């Protein structure tokens, strides 16, 4: 059995633990809610965490389809980048996957599999790099929309002043 096969057979358990570990980054009241409320409109964060982790794990175990993996990542990072987290905390959930996998495989993880494990962990590293990109993109977006909104608050006035200036010149 290759490491990949092993991981496949523990997919459900890994996914569950990854989701739970991610929930633990929130206060207990919040994680209980994000976990418990299953309606996707009443609980968009829980829904994003569930979908995002699933999409990413499937990519890690299968094809590393960059587009898909980024879509899964963005579900989560877009939210965590505006929540009450430092940048490191916001993307920390990716690194917890390493520990979870090591713990989940436990005994099976003997020295003969270290190369395979290193390869797999490189994939997680790749994921982390994508996450940094997405995190920064989201923060940039945050500042852009801040500026846009401030501009919009007087946009009607600016149009009027510009029009008056045009008239004065012609």
């Amino acid at each position, binding site marked *: 059995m290759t490491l990949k096969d092993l991981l496949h057979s523990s997919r459900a358990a890994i996914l569950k633990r990854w989701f739970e570990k991610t929930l633990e980054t929130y206060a207990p009241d919040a994680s209980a809610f994000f976990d418990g*409320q299953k309606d996707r409109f009443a609980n968009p964060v829980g829904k994003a965490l569930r979908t995002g982790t699933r999409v990413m794990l499937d990519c890690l175990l299968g094809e590393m389809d960059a587009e898909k993996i980024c879509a899964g990542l963005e579900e989560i990072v877009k939210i965590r980048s505006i929540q009450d987290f430092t940048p490191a905390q916001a993307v920390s959930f990716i690194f917890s996957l390493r520990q979870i996998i090591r713990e989940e495989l436990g005994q099976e993880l003997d020295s003969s599999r270290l190369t395979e494990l290193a390869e797999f962990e490189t994939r997680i590293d790749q994921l982390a790099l994508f996450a940094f990109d997405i995190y920064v993109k989201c923060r940039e977006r945050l500042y852009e929309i801040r500026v846009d909104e401030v501009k919009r608050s007087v946009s009607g006035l600016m149009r009027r002043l510009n029009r008056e200036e045009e008239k004065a010149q012609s």
Partner: protein
Amino acid sequence: MAEAKFDEMDHYKQAELMKFDFRPPPTGWMDTPTDFRPGSWIYPGKAKHLEYLDLPNPREWAVTDEDWQLPKNWKEIVLEGMRERLSRYRTFKIFMDICVRCGACADKCHFFIGGGDPKNMPVMRAELLRSIYRKDFTALGKVFGKLAGGRELTVDVIKEWFYYFFQCTECRRCSVFCPYGIDTAEITIIGRELLGLLGLYVNWVIEPVANCFRTGNHLGIQPHGLKDTLEFFAEDIEDSTGIKVDIPLNKKGAEVLFVTPSGDFLADPGTYTCMGYMALFHEIGLDYTWSTYASEGGNFGLFTSHETIKRLNAKIYAEAKRLGVKWILGGECGHMWRVLNQYMDTMNGPPDFLEVPKSPLTGTVFDNARSTKMVHIMEFTADLIRHGKLKLDPSRNDHIKVTFHDSCNPARAMGILEEPRYVLKNVCNNFYEMPPNTIREQTFCCGGGAGLGTDENMEMRLRGGLPRGNAVRYVQDKFGVNELACMCAIDRATLTTVCDYWAPPVRVTGIHELVSNALQMKGAKDREVNFRLEEIEHWKQKAAPAGRKEGSSDV
């Protein structure tokens, strides 16, 4: 071997490195100090605005200062303020006493849903104040203190109030789910009043209040500025339709006084909605007037104190009396209607010099407005459509797939749920509802109401806007929705931002902008552009053959 120092490899044990914990501290909520993270709070009110309004303790200070320069006897002031309000407002006393902490409201606040901070659970938000109430105003609390859920009033408590009472948009979603009808918005209102006694205001609220007190509107637009603005709108309406609309200003003896939030004067896309009203009134020949004094429908007093609501609202009746109108019509605004519907009559009425509003076109008497004498434009327009008084071509909006956001106040405080939908269905062919638990009474707030709509707390607003944005994204993915309609000036500003982040490129529109697209005005040219002066492809195609008929150019 000596213990390795922190900058030496051996200092770190592999087993310990593997253990990491990002969990928040396990202290009880009363003992966890507030972490003032930038992006979550709002700048304090500037001294000059407080002075202008005769508010206490004007000074320059920053939220990040250790010392907030409270008055020496601040504790006495707060406790006395609470005592006074407990006897004056029965609801406040009841809300302090009857919460059974059932938790039904806990997960209903958009800030908790999007952010996960437990103190944004409505029950906890109220508890911030209730714990002081228990300690100082109940027999049990006085004796047992913390054991009875009471806590000492300290400067940290005041800071915590400032942080969390300005993370509540007073949207009242939580109250819909409370079996006892506890309205956390009212608790927030009182909490902010108490903060106000110490001179703790936010600038985004108190500057507009000062402006409004001085010029009649939040933006400080003076009479000539308002005249210029409306004339500018009239020019654009003419460019779009070929029709020159009248701008009745301070017209004595007009039948109707029209009042709308001043956001519609300066900020896109509210400006286009404002043009929509002007075009509509012209088309139906309404005998109405604008006022350069009652030039604000909104009332940021609602986010300050009951006293301030009253001071700002008074101008509307005063102006109606001075101009001698029969009744008042109000534009698309949210919190304005909470004030008009809930407070105006008792605070500044009764307006017995006005008549019960009656539509001059349909003869409909608006009995629901018998006491306040003020009608919501959505009721007015829905009634016009119902009686076939408007020539509408909904296919003019075929380039738009629209969904509707129920603004918290008209929906939950007034129950205006059907009128906007009725109007939308008559002016658009493609209208799609968002999921049921995100609309009508259960609507999700934009995250920027009640004085939170500034930009320095943008992260907080995006957390609060997530549930709404998420529902918009759903109808965008499912039906291809490209516009979000709403009837609130704050929404038109804040939801644009919410959509820009959570559901781009959905854009925001007022309902009367859509009405104006569909409205077939008498004597209008073949329109090719809307009030945004954007060319609309299918309008151009329709207009083209007509252009040729006149045989002007392309022979």
